[in-house]
């Protein structure tokens, strides 16, 4: 299983994502100006501030050459994981429903969160315990998940919400406490919290590894 981790100007979690990927498979960085995805079996769009978050978070990264290849890759069923800024990029690219808005608390907020695993029947959570919790950090200013009522109803009915903020943990004001959502086809997933920062006991939790291990299982 080979992960390709995108790197934009302003990405800052690309090396952690690469290190997390290498715990469960191979990993390689892909510069945003390249169209060649280097034979990756799964793509990770990491956190950070691609293109300085100019205009809107993720709005400009969406048009990079590497993203054009990722959009085609996703269209063919390839697995794509977007973390934080990567989630914003995937929403801007319309690979995922909805949008990420400024936190309801108006602040850049960094804290360790408890997430509920809502679905384990997915390529991104199949190695997690059903109904279990993940302790994973979040750090963002634009993480309030929003979608219109019709879209919310559709994604809830089709089981696209994979992760929710546990009770009392939804600091950003996301609708339906949504922390992570997949596309209808099930091959694209985005979440605001950072599983790649929770893969070693040194940092307090290994729960994030479940997301990477799931992808490695699903890609085989």
């Amino acid at each position, binding site marked *: 299983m080979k992960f390709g981790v995108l790197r934009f100007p302003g990405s800052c979690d690309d090396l952690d994502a690469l290190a997390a990927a290498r715990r469960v498979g191979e990993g390689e960085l892909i510069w945003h100006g390249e169209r060649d995805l280097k034979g990756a079996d799964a793509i990770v769009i990491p956190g950070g501030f691609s293109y300085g978050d100019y*205009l*809107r978070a993720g*709005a*400009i990264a969406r*048009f990079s050459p590497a993203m054009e290849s990722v959009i085609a890759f996703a269209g063919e069923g390839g697995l794509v994981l977007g973390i934080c800024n990567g989630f914003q990029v995937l929403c*801007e690219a319309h690979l995922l429903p*909805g*949008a990420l*808005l*400024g*936190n*309801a*608390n*108006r602040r850049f907020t960094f804290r360790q969160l408890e997430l509920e695993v809502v679905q384990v029947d997915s390529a991104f959570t199949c190695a997690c315990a059903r109904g279990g919790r993940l302790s994973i950090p979040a750090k963002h200013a634009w993480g*309030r998940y*929003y*979608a*219109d009522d019709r879209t919310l109803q559709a994604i809830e009915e089709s089981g696209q919400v994979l992760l929710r903020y546990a009770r009392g943990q939804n600091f950003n*004001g996301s609708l339906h406490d949504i922390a992570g959502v997949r596309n209808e086809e099930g091959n694209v997933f985005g979440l605001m919290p950072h599983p790649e920062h929770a893969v070693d006991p040194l940092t307090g939790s290994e729960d994030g590894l479940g997301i990477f291990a799931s992808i490695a299982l699903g890609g085989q």
Partner: protein
Amino acid sequence: MLIRPKAGILDPQGLAVERALPALGFTGVANVHVGRLVELDVEDAAQLQPMCEKLLANPLVEDYEVQLLDGNG
């Protein structure tokens, strides 16, 4: 192009400004929303709307309006 949050979507920035104004003695203020302004020169004004749809605004969460100024504007 004037771009603003869609009505009905929580606008924390607008709310913060709305709460700050009375503190300065400005009363009777309601419905504050903070958006952004994009100015540009363009040869073909027909490109402005698709520009807004594809990049300058996110139509899921933002409304936009285009104002044309003459060459001296």
